[in-house]
């Protein structure tokens, strides 16, 4: 007699672990792509500063990569994606301190995510750590654009540590780790719209907030933090008097191109599987990005008479940001519409800082905060099943606005506390004279370029 159960099982496990390899391959790739986005941001921002500040700009991003690479395995991942939940805000930083339970194999097998069982969306737990790591890196790196050309590098390193610990990891937990802003039983959404316990004790919320790849967790979060820090830290010497044009627009373009590339890891990676859904997210992402660049360029052409390259680069980023929360739930047509709207709005939004007189130096608020908000809210209209334009009623819209608001408040408050604490202790700014001479020399004792050394004039 043959043991059919056993046959099925054996074949099945092998087969299912076949998925592990496929999904793992894509998630390893996606994690690498997302890691590359931070250097991309570095060049996007670096090209936009003056030539006396590019090294520092690159170093702010590099500093984020360096510090978060160390603290994420220490306690960051554990705080965001541990199993215990503290009042919906974060999980235990010591549960997986130094990833101890994740990097231990049990009978030669490491754990997989999501959940415990093997299914077509599973992949190795160690890979999840690295994928999530790269999101934390870029989130904090984004903030640096708002406070460019004026802050002490040492203060920044400490800020990165505190912000990832007290703002990013909790926010990731709240939205993606089953906390307050998720659709779990103890979430705001369940509190308002209710839900019920389904089979196997799984909670089914009536309305589930949607943040596919980080519109709230990454962009609204970093965007509001950018606003707060620049308000506290203050303006650059010469703000609004000098125009401070970008010193190297090809670098800005390089950054935007690499962001576009890396963002496929960000969005198509956020399906956690190399399946049709990933392809779907890739399509939305590129459609929205192209449309947003068009939206920005057209707005510029009407207002200023030119299609600028800085506008194209900015529009690309605005589109990528806006589609981030929505890439898995908007059809290609709505993706294009969402992109057009985001591009035009962000183009107008970058002017706000002049009106309201805050020095968001490289427009993190105008692009990431506004873009993130646009995408998060438009889900309420465009989402395939739950959006108002798809007969979904207003509930999705309401919850989208709500999670955005709560995220703004949480991030705004905690970032304020951190930034103030640093201001009052070690201080944020280099001296005005150092700033005028160039932050590169002040912080790093270096200057970026020397094209004339061969002429003997380099020294």
């Amino acid at each position: 007699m043959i043991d059919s159960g056993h046959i099925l099982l054996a074949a099945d496990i092998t087969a299912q672990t076949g998925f592990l390899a496929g999904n793992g391959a894509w998630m390893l790739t996606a994690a690498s792509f997302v890691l590359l986005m931070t250097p991309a941001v570095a060049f996007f921002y670096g090209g936009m500063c003056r030539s006396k500040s590019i090294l520092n700009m690159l170093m702010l991003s590099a500093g984020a990569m360096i510090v978060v690479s160390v603290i994420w395995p220490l306690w960051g991942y554990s705080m965001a994606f541990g199993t215990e939940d503290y009042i919906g805000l974060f999980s235990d930083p010591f549960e997986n301190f130094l990833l101890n339970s994740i990097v231990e194999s049990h009978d030669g097998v490491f754990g997989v995510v999501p959940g415990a069982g093997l299914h077509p969306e599973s992949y190795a737990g160690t890979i999840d750590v690295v994928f999530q790591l790269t999101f934390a890196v870029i989130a904090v790196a984004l903030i640096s654009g708002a406070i460019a050309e004026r802050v002490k590098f040492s203060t920044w390193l400490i800020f990165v540590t505190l912000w990832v610990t007290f703002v990013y990891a909790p926010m990731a937990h709240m939205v993606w780790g089953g906390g307050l802003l998720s659709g779990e039983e103890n979430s705001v959404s369940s509190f308002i719209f209710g839900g019920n316990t389904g089979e196997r004790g799984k909670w089914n919320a009536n309305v589930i907030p949607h943040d596919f790849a980080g519109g709230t967790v990454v962009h609204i979060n970093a965007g509001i933090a950018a606003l707060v820090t620049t308000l506290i830290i203050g303006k650059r010497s010469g703000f609004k008097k000098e125009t401070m044009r970008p010193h190297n627009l090809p670098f800005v373009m390089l950054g935007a191109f690499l962001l576009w590339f890396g963002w496929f890891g960000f969005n198509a990676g956020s399906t956690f599987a190399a399946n049709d859904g990933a392809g779907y997210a890739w399509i939305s992402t590129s459609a929205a990005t192209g449309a947003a660049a068009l939206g920005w360029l057209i707005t510029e052409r009407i207002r200023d008479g030119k299609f600028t390259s800085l506008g194209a680069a900015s529009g690309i980023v605005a589109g990528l940001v806006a589609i981030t929360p929505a890439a898995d739930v908007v059809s290609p047509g709505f993706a294009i519409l969402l992109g057009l709207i985001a591009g035009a709005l962000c183009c107008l939004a970058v002017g706000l800082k002049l009106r309201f007189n805050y020095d968001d130096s490289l427009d993190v608020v105008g692009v990431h905060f506004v873009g993130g908000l646009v995408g998060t809210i438009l889900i309420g209209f465009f989402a395939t099943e739950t959006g108002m334009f798809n007969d979904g009623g207003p509930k999705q819209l309401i919850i989208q606005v709500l999670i955005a608001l709560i995220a703004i408040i949480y991030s705004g408050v905690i970032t304020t506390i951190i930034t103030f604490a640093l201001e009052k202790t070690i201080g944020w700014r280099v001296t005005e004279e150092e700033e005028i001479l160039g932050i590169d020399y002040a912080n790093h004792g270096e200057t970026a370029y020397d094209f004339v050394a061969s002429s003997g004039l380099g020294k």
Partner: protein
Amino acid sequence: MKLVTAIIQPHRLDDVKSNLELTGVHGMTASEAKGFGRQKGHTEIYRGREYAVDLVPKVRLEIVCDDADAAIITEVITRSASTGKIGDGKVWIMPLDDVVRVRTGEHGVAAI
């Protein structure tokens, strides 16, 4: 006619330029220069090795003017470029034989 040449701190250029315009100077030629003098340069560090940069960035201004205006132009530049710190630069005045406007071929004061 005279040629007034000024070596100034780069960040004073904007002020010097606008004050000169107020004084009625409508043309000048600027160029990059590197100064060497009492003001010391700085030291950059590359992989632990120090690299002394003793040439300091300056801007050179050249203004052709009528004999009579040389003094006042020198005065305006000196005043607007001065920060009181070592390295503020120099202004010097040279005699010119003639000046020509390329576009029209005009000579002398008419060409300025």
